[in-house]
């Protein structure tokens, strides 16, 4: 079990490479928004969601009301529902409490990693938790470091830290494009997401684009199967 867990730790290293800088950027922003250390790092423990935390820190800084913060977080993070459903069939034989813990650390990045790991085989549960726990630990440490450095740092851009998130998404997306129809739907989803974003739907664009493109993809796939058979 220990060796499975450690294998998970190793698999998570690419996520760590992205989470430390993005967590750091969040920590800097949280410090500049006037959050206390405990709450700033606490958010990384309790919420653990990159984009929602960056938006949240900004809203706290702007003096937003609690209800607005909670509602925004809900909308921004609702996409995880689809990821959770997509992983559900892979969790055969898991106990409810294990699923409850696993779901706590489901992020865009851990989801993409698990959907690759679980696509053909079912890896040991300890390995899966190794990936998750390592990822969140690096996120928490990155936020802590960013918060502590926040007073000295004006901008996190010069060293390319701000590109950690896009680079991580590229690394996670490419292996998912196994069939041409997935590639085409990814392009469609990306285009829809940009369009909705530019139209001002800057919190619901991701989930809306995902739902539409997946539905179109299903339709195209059914139609292709129909015509070929």
């Amino acid at each position, binding site marked *: 079990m220990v060796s499975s867990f450690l294998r998970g730790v190793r698999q998570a290293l690419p996520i760590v490479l992205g989470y430390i800088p993005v967590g750091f950027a969040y920590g800097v922003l949280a410090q500049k928004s006037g959050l206390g250390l405990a709450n700033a790092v606490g958010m990384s423990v309790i919420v653990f969601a990159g984009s929602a935390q960056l938006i949240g820190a900004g809203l706290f800084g702007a003096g937003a009301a*609690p209800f607005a913060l909670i509602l925004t*977080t809900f909308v921004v993070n609702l996409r995880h529902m689809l990821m959770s459903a997509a992983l559900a069939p892979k969790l055969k034989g898991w106990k*409810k409490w294990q699923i409850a813990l696993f779901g706590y650390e489901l992020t865009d990045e851990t989801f993409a990693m698990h959907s690759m790991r679980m696509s053909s085989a079912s890896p040991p549960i300890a390995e899966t938790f190794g990936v998750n726990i390592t990822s969140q630990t690096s996120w928490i440490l990155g936020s802590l470091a960013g918060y502590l450095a926040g007073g000295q740092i004006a901008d996190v851009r010069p060293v390319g830290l701000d*590109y950690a998130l*896009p680079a991580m*998404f590229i690394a*996670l997306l490419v292996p998912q494009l196994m069939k041409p129809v997935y590639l085409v739907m*990814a392009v469609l989803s990306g285009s829809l997401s940009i369009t909705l974003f530019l139209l001002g739907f800057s919190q619901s664009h991701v989930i809306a684009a*995902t739902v539409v493109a997946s539905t179109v993809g299903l339709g195209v796939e059914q139609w292709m199967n129909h015509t070929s058979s």
Partner: protein
Amino acid sequence: MDESHVFLTILGMGAVTYLPRVLPMLLLSGRNLAPWIARWLSFVPATVLAALLAPGLICPEGRLDISVNNLYLLAAIPTFFVAWRFKSFFGTVATGMGLVALMRFFL
């Protein structure tokens, strides 16, 4: 807001984040989904990651920018290549971040 109210708000943010993460898994795990639902869900990894990525590359400053001044978009081309050709997750992330840092330094 004082820090205790901030903390309560964060707990609320945590709750509304956790429920959508865990409920579908808890309710659907171990069940056999209808084949069309399973097929629909098989599109989610590719479509959700593309939807997350695209606005950051094409509108890094919040508005449309398809030009050579858009470092995010320029750096994405070799980063995609590395991801596709070498299938190294770590190498891809390092390439992207390194390129953006280098381009800022030299351009």
